[in-house]
């Protein structure tokens, strides 16, 4: 009887959730967070995102020398009267930023709840973007049918449910290289801002090109690598035949337990390479596990890294 009651309570709680992707309490905490883009890859339209300098708001930011072609309306005449040199007043500008969340839904992401975690993070970051009055776009590549699906750009709380439903409907299973999906997404996307790339990056594709495509499109890359527990700390032993779920290729490994140290070295090296690729393009990198707590990732890891504030 108690089991049945527990199950009933759980179902009723799920029914009260706005989306299975994010618990309500997480949603409420996300409402208070904003994305912190370190570069000014912003759209020209006004938004709620406060740019560092050169804005047109009423909030003073700085002075600079006047240059030919500057709008004469921003010359500080008081200074000019005093110093006999023209200085331009700069104001903080509240700009609208594009937040592009790209989810890799390839077959490899189906392991150990990586795609689910990617969808949850995409939902979380999307919510932060929507509630921050950013232009949020969602892109899912390498999905089951191989097509690239896109949502947005959209903004405002009104699109939150739309975003949730979009993500809930994502089914993984594709097997194309990462850069292909990104390239196809960017054909339909315009606008500068932040691109959050959620993937395991375990691809034979050219990751450098993928990063370049995003960077070239004016998007600051936030690369989030999601790995399963078995990928982060494999426990293989003996003679095994590894089967690549994306390609179907096999690889015979003998005395696998003796290779684990080498595997860990390569995994760490791979992560370093990803991080350097992201940093070289003004981006950031974080590696999370599919078994890591969602709350820890959103409210601890991302905040400590300065992605959310």
């Amino acid at each position, binding site marked *: 009887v108690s089991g049945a009651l527990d199950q009933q309570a759980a179902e009723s709680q799920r029914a009260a959730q706005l989306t299975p992707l994010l618990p309500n309490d997480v949603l409420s905490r996300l409402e208070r967070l904003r994305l912190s883009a370190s570069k000014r890859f912003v759209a020209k339209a006004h938004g709620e995102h406060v740019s560092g300098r050169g804005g047109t708001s009423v909030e003073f930011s700085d002075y600079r020398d006047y240059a030919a072609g500057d709008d004469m309306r921003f010359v500080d005449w008081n200074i000019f009267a005093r110093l006999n040199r023209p200085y331009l007043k700069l104001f903080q500008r509240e700009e609208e930023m594009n937040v592009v969340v790209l989810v890799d839904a390839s077959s490899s992401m189906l*392991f150990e709840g990586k795609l689910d975690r990617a969808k949850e993070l995409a939902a979380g970051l999307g919510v932060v973007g929507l509630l921050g009055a950013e232009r949020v776009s969602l892109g899912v590549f390498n999905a089951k049918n191989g097509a690239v699906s896109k949502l947005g750009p959209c903004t405002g709380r009104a699109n939150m449910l739309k975003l949730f439903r979009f993500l809930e409907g994502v089914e993984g299973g594709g097997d194309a290289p990462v850069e292909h999906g990104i390239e196809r997404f960017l054909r339909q996307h315009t606008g500068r801002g932040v691109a959050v790339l959620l993937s*395991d990056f375990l691809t034979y594709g050219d990751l450098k090109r993928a990063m370049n495509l995003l960077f070239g499109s004016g998007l600051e890359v936030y690369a989030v690598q999601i790995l399963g527990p078995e*990928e982060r700390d494999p426990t293989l032993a003996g003679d095994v035949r590894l089967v*690549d779920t994306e390609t179907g290729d096999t*690889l015979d490994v003998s005395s696998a337990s003796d290779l684990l140290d080498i595997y860990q070295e390569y995994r760490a090296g791979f992560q370093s390479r990803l991080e350097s690729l992201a940093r070289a393009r003004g981006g950031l990198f974080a590696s999370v596990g599919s078994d890591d707590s969602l709350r820890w990732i959103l409210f601890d890891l991302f905040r400590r890294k300065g992605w959310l504030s």
Partner: protein
Amino acid sequence: MMGFHALWGAALAGLAVPLIVLYFLKLKRTRLDVPSLVLWRQVIDDARVNSPFQRFKRNLLLLLQLAGLAGLVLALMQPFIGGDDDRIERMPILVDCSASMAARDETTGKTRLELAKERARSLVDSLRPGAELAIVSFAMSASRMTGFTSDRRDLSDALERMEIQDVGSDVESALRMAEAMARREPFDSVLLLSDGNFPADVEFDLPFKLDYQRLPPAGQNAGITSFNALRAPGGTWNVFCRMESTADSAVPGTVKLYCDGELVQREDVALQRDATQRVVFSLAGDTAKRLRAELSVDGYDSLATDDAAHLDLPLARPLRVWVSPGLTAVRHALSAMSGLAIYPGDVGADASSYDLVVTDKRTELDLRTTSALYIGLVPDAVKAHVALSEGGSRAIDWQRDSALLRHMELTDVVFVDTPTFAPGSGVADLEALGFMTIVDGASGPVVLTEDRGAGTAVYLLCHTDRSTLPYRVGFPVMMRNLVEIAYHEANLAEVESLKTGTLSLHDLTPGVAHAFTTPSGHTRELKASAVGSLVGMSAPVVGEYTLTGPGGTRMVAASLLDPEETSLAYAQELLLHELTVEASLTPLRPERPLSGSIALAAFCVLLGEWWLFNRRPGVS
């Protein structure tokens, strides 16, 4: 040097081919789906993974299987590390079981025989397939314990059955036994395991190679080597006990004399090598006594069997002599001697048996006696070859070393009776009948002797009354010699302790079965001879033997009393005809079979492989 008994087993190495094929066909790999092989391919391509050690580990199971197979194939090939006996196909092992082989080592406590058994057993244990051994034990005589066999159990049982015999050793008998075996089943070499305590000179033509393995000597030894008694005047016995030792320095000891189980005398002695000690005890001869001498020394004594000796001391009675009343000259000569009881006549009633009978009457031939002198009587058995006639004869030749004829001169003696050989007969015919001629006449024998086991019968074919012999000075001398012989044969003059080997008993009920019991309790039935004797009874061990018959039970004790055995001396070489065989102290290095060890190792390898194979594969 290493070798193989079954090289054909190497052909099984071909099984490696199907093993390798099956390994790769049936390699048990758990399929494990992974998100991507990106990282794993890089790992596999890493140089460290492809290092020789990692390559080895990659196919560890296959290598273990191949190692196991190689081990099994090697075990099937029956490898061995060759020993000294690697070329021997058939070999008898002669094991010395004489008394000296009972000498115990001071440190290990093992007897020489146990050591010999160990060496023989190591050869048996390492017996190659097809090779055969035979076990022969020898002491005074050789005994074949087994024929040639490969059966290790039979050989081991034979070794177990071998026991010490408290007698000397006769290596020649063992070699002759081996020679006889070689006639039926040829072999090249013989192994002799002995402590070397035997005569070095052996009259034997060696037809095979002899490997003389001398066992290391035991510690020092002391023992009684002689125990006898001489009759002394006054009806007493002087008992002599001689002791010897192998100790380099004088070792104090004590010899105790027990009379019918009671300690009667003891003497302290100091024993040393090459310094024989003799102790004399004086005992009254009024009764028969059973004597036992025991020697104990301060220090180690490796041989126990020579530390005691037994002696049955008879009553020191007068010699009972029957002399036919008509033989006046003989009676006259004997009457001058003391210690004689002459029948019939001066000593009461006639005795049932005598120590000496001197008669010229055929009716008195049946008198029971030990020694006898028959005068003028031709034995019935000899009558076909010798006949008496009258005509006169002289002694032409005689055995001057004969006990009867010592200090005698027969040249001038004339006999009226003339013994003459029947035509075609001669000395050889008499010898064939058991008669020895000690005095020869011109045409036939004058004096014959017959060894009757218990004593000697002398036949003087010519009657003394018809000869000049009684008038010669030699006559009383001959009578004195005869009495001396009778004394000895009646054991009244000197008594010797019985030695192990063979025993002879007399004065038994003729033709009647007697039960002969050895010290170990084994009893067998023996039938006394027609003259009431049992001769040649085997007495291989020291101790008391019992003979039970209609006349009651007689106990006799046999002692070792062998200076050679007590000395524990050893012959460093055997001097054979035209050949000398050096002794070797180093035991034969037996062949070491490796099949068992290799098979065990292969089994362990396969067990390890099985464990690895069944270890939880894949994710652990």
